[in-house]
């Protein structure tokens, strides 16, 4: 037990936690925006994969890293447009469409990767390096954890604050929440349900895709099959765990990331349990988290209810 405590007290552990947290936070925020407007987006896993590949390819072909992030967001937005079009104006099943989008995003990425990168050795790019915030990074312990991170980590946390502000403090946010809670009432108030939902899905999907791009542009420097490895699905559980609130999304994803970071370190430390049980931990914990909050929270009331004017 004391060894666990030793691990938790190091700065490198907390720095790793923040690093692991960032893609989860992007994904969770993206999914949260979609769901607050009443659209479940199960395409997340595939959209993150597409974001990871498109961001990486852009940089591999010579553009700079931020262009890569923008291209990833754009590709995510296109997938969001497709998911939104099928589920909002056409009102198709959000579950099944989402799975279709997810399969499409992943398979299209792997297809393009195989097609464009012919060599068997995986080429690499030069990823984002940590940005030291002057002065602040020199604070002992806290400095290296909070102020010596990849710029995308800063972006993830600022985005969470921005989403929280927009959702609760602006008319736009009110419209999003209203459309997600009671689409018919929102429509009666003159809010464009279709417009708001489409916008939410497009923006949300773009943010998810940046989460995917974080993996290839910051966490690793290459793309490979199964890169996203279920992170998208975990984000869907995290949205429920954070009871659809952006501020809690930070706490929830930090909590999960810290367990993941701990898991990696414990795995290296002792030869006790087989490594598979450590890898199972995030999935089992997601399930436990869902059970824990099941009785207490209820999601947006119009989630997964398609809206067709004049039809109940």
């Amino acid at each position, binding site marked *: 037990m004391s060894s666990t405590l030793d691990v938790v007290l190091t700065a490198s552990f907390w720095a790793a936690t923040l690093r692991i947290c960032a893609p989860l936070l992007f994904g969770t925020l993206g999914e949260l925006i979609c769901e607050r407007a009443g659209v479940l987006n199960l395409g997340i896993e595939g959209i993150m994969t597409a974001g990871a590949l498109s961001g990486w390819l852009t940089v591999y072909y010579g553009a700079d890293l931020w262009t890569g992030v923008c291209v990833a967001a754009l590709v995510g937005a296109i997938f969001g447009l497709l998911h939104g079009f099928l589920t909002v104006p056409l009102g198709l099943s959000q579950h099944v469409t989402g799975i279709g989008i997810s399969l*499409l995003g992943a398979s299209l990425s792997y297809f393009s990767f195989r*097609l464009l990168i012919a060599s068997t050795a995986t080429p690499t790019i030069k990823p984002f390096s940590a940005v030291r915030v002057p002065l602040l990074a020199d604070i002992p312990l806290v400095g290296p954890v909070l102020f010596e991170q990849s710029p995308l980590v800063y972006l993830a946390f600022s985005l969470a604050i921005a989403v929280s502000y927009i959702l609760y403090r602006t008319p736009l946010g009110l419209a999003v929440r209203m459309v997600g809670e009671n689409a018919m009432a929102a429509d009666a108030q003159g809010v464009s349900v279709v417009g708001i939902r489409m916008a939410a899905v497009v923006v949300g999907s773009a943010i998810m895709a940046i989460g995917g791009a974080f993996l290839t542009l910051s966490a690793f420097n290459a793309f490979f099959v199964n890169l996203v490895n279920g992170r998208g699905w975990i984000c869907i559980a995290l949205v429920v765990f954070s009871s659809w609130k952006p501020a809690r999304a930070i706490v929830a994803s930090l909590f999960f990331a810290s367990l993941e970071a701990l898991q990696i370190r414990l795995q290296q430390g002792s030869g006790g349990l087989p490594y598979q049980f450590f890898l199972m931990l995030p999935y089992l914990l997601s*399930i436990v988290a869902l059970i824990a909050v099941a009785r207490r929270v209820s999601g947006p009331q119009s989630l997964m209810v398609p809206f067709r004017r004049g039809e109940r």
Partner: protein
Amino acid sequence: MRVERRDFSPLAVRLAAPGVAVLASLLICSSLIKAAGAPVLWAYWTMLVGAVGSLNSVSETLTRATPLIFTGLSVAVAFRARIWNIGAEGQLYAGALATVLVAEEGGRIAAVVPHWALPIVAAGAAFALGAALLLGPVVLKVKLGVDEVVTTLLSNFVMLLFVSYLLDGPFKDPMSMGWPQTPPVDATVSLRHLLGGTARLHAGFLFALLGAALLWLFNVRSVWGYEMRAVGLSLNGARFAGMPVTSVLLRVAVLSGGIAGIAGFNEIAGVKGYLTLDMSPGFGYSGIVVAMLAQLHPVGVVISAVFVAAIFVGADAMSRAVAVPNYIADVIVSVSLLTMLVAMMLTRYMIRHE
């Protein structure tokens, strides 16, 4: 743009919808084949020949279709009752695990039951373990309102890691030269091959056809099947009509998870002979596509499973003949799913411009 419900949709339109959807999907994907620099028609031709051009390739397609029929039926049963079982992949591995366990204990079990019944015992065990894996999430849904989409999805990862652990440790074949796989199962558990030579088609395919037929009869001719459909159409309606909704949902879970478990038995006993971690190239997830293409109809599942299998087998042949990565199969199948959803919607609704 405005979406309006149709007053009626002719049967011919509903039957034509899947065909149109598949054609649209092939048309969309031809742009990818073109991007890969291959002549489109020739590429699709090599795909067709690769899938059904010879007895061996037909056998290969049907062998590949067999687990898809099972997972497709599993998903169709669950979706019809509005249980979103995305966990067929994990349930398939649970079934495979059960089969390996029964084969391991074959000697002791054979002392109790006759020798010819061993495959039945293995299939039963696979059904039970698959059912158990889905029962958990469905109980959580019914009792606590935990969303089953996420829990079944996550159960896939847990199951795969558990199998990975077993293959590294207790179940590892000492003779496998270090590969993580179980020892080959005893021939007494195996399913008979149907064709001579190298063709891999086995009796499991016939059982899959039988299963689809039985399920269809069960759906339209039994009280339990009727209740399952009623619960899917309207949960509150079914409850109001006095149906035991909770136990109906649990029955659906057992049936759906069990059928997916049988898919695992089928792969071990009919094709592979031992358990590895790459036994299923996503049969569980493809099962969702198969079930949706079939409009959740058991007989349709057989047809769409053969179609999806033909795409995968054909794409392998195509990627050998012309340089198109075989991931094209996954793209075609996922685009088919989306075009099918749109086609199905258009049979029930029409789009009006205002």
